[in-house]
């Protein structure tokens, strides 16, 4: 049995983790690879912390065990830390360098770490930190942040960049194909020069 390549994508409901999963799944189909995944639906999506599991070459179950993910992609800095225990030793972490503070921090005045404090805790994973908002805006729309981050992670994913880009173009809304293709390329270029 081929060992699967396990990717955990985390973020906040509404940030586009499911689209990212669909892009990876479609790229697997293009390469004739098996793929399994699991995601969060229903009420938990309403602004809550969400996780999407993808297992490239996965044969059986869809879930990734903590401590075994080959790649952790996070659309939010705080969520990267929350799920960091999923990453295997020596695994890769690609993270949006900004966070959205949970509303409870404001309403209950609960303590929250700063972005710098979180980054300090993530250093041991040698993360690729990416200012996705800035790059997405340069690409043409801040809504393409998820595709920017996917592009940045693409070097670590055992799929051809061409397959991923084809999948991006196929799955994003027709009017946004150009912006998202650019977002993918810019994210990919960013992490090469890191």
């Amino acid at each position, binding site marked *: 049995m081929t060992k699967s390549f396990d990717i955990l994508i985390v973020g906040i*409901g509404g940030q586009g983790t499911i689209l990212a999963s669909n892009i990876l799944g479609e790229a697997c*189909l293009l390469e004739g690879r098996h793929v399994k995944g699991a995601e969060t639906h229903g009420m938990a999506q309403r602004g809550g912390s969400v996780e999407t599991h993808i297992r490239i070459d996965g044969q059986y179950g869809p879930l990734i065990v903590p401590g075994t993910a080959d790649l952790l992609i996070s659309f939010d800095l705080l969520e990267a830390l929350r799920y960091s225990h999923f990453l295997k030793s020596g695994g890769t972490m690609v993270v949006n360098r900004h966070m959205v503070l949970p509303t409870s921090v404001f309403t209950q005045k609960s303590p929250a770490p700063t972005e710098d404090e979180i980054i300090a805790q993530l250093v041991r994973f040698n993360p690729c930190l990416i200012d996705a908002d800035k790059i997405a805006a340069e690409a043409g729309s801040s809504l393409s942040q998820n595709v920017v981050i996917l592009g940045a992670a693409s070097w670590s994913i055992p799929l051809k960049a061409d397959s991923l880009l084809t999948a991006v173009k196929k799955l994003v809304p027709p009017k946004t194909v150009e912006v998202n293709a650019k977002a993918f390329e810019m994210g990919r270029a960013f992490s090469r020069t890191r």
Partner: protein
Amino acid sequence: MQRHYLLGNEAIAHACLESGIDFASGYPGTPSSEVIDVLRVQKDPAYYVEWSVNEKVALENALAAAWCGIRAICTMKHVGLNVAADPLMTSAYTGVTGGLVIMSADDPFAHSSQNEQDTRCYAHFARLPCLDPAGVQEAHDMIGTAFEISEEFRLPVLFRPTTRICHSKGDVELGDAVPSTRKGEFHKDPRQYVVIPAHTRLLHKKLNEKQPALKKRLVERGLNHSTIKGKTAIIASGIGASYVQELLPPDVSFMKIGAYPIDEDWLGEFAKKHEKILVIEELAPVVEEAVRQVAGCVPVFGKINGYAPYEGELSPAVVAAIMVKAGFLPKNPFAAMEPVQNLPMRPPILCAGCHHRAAFYAIKKVFKDAAIYPSDIGCYTLGIQLGVVDTTICMGASITVGSGITHSGEPRDVVSTIGDSTFLHTGIQGLMNAVYNGANMTLVILDNRITAMTGHQPNPNSGVTATGVETPPVSLDAICRACGATFVETVDPYDMTGILRVLEEAKKKKGVKVIIAKQMCVIAARRAGVKRGRYAVNPDLCTGCGTCVRFGCPAIEFADEKARINDLCSGCAVCARLCPVGAISREAKK
């Protein structure tokens, strides 16, 4: 043949198309909703599809369709099957003449549910066959088999995927869709369809007589199968079987259970060839009990003797730990990993601009902490974060729990909250009962015109059917008045002054007072193109008092002693109405 990366429910829906279904009904419920959602958006379907008002209604409709000789599927979540239990139990007696598949999706770990019940227990209870897939491809493939078994044995077939099937994805091999061709035809046969005692006694006997052949057929169809590899064995079902296969040592025998009832003779033959057996399954020990009945002196490890948990969901890590404990793996291949502690939680939250938040704010302001707040099942259950949800038990129970509390002698005010879809599901009877029996309570119907939490399905309140055909919307006001309520007021919860006034009025009156807080779901409104313009805080005027922040809208942040509105703002303007110094106003056009 085509291969797609699909959600389990999408694959199940496609399998329905491949089976040439003629009829589909259901009530939304996570994790089952996407099956009907996919079926209802197909272009010019040759089959009939409806969102029903509740699961009992959905099942009775589908059962009748299957009595007319056509193929019907009915979908719901596990707790929906409780609502549909009445027709379910007797449908096993009447049987069907067409094919009927009842999908009841279980939710181990209660990701989005009020309990962790097991549909397989209903199958046993009703003596109906039940298919239990272990993955997305198998879930797809089982649908065709389920229809064939239903037609062969003339019985409804339960189909029981779980959250990790419905909301898993995988590369799935699909067949071609087959258009629906059958036309329903009802043949009168009172001995089958009229369950008076004289008929039902015979029908019960017939149901029991079907069982032995059914058990054999499930094995012959390959739904239950085994491979003998050694002196020890693992028997697994559902997604647990997939986790076991990731970990199975080469010298351990494996039995996969995908359908019930299990043939005891076949199971016993397997059991007696082994020296010990481990059973892996989610929720109730259904397979384990069957194994124990035939295992004789072969030791069985499972939930009943404490090797596996009854509650929660399985994962490869949990299965590995069970296998180690029962001596089926020398050591756990997974190291225990602890998440980082003390991070701020990020639970789901009512959306920015959700009118439920405004209604809850007003209710709390008028009735204060002293009142008791029974609530119900929907997005608004998140009102627990705002301190206005004191009870939820099942669909429609906000009203009945409210009236029960008032009749118990509890003197405090009772304010029940219920969504429009839940009210139409099973709330109306509770309201009728409360008025009839003279309860003193306030009922706020949180009317957002749609079934929001499960993915914005239309209901009789929405003015469109499942397929988008316009239909007259029900009048909640008229329903409440027809139930006997005389105080029935409809308000816009964004109009804080108006809703506060109506709540104050209700508080003073005796009897059952109904307030319909009506406003479009903010997500549905955005999709419909409603644009209200964003609001902003004037930092020169903001005193940092925190009134708007405590409102709890995710669009409102607080930094450097000032409030700030982020780009989640949907322009509901409620915070502007709450601000005591008028620091919040519509953002100037850029």
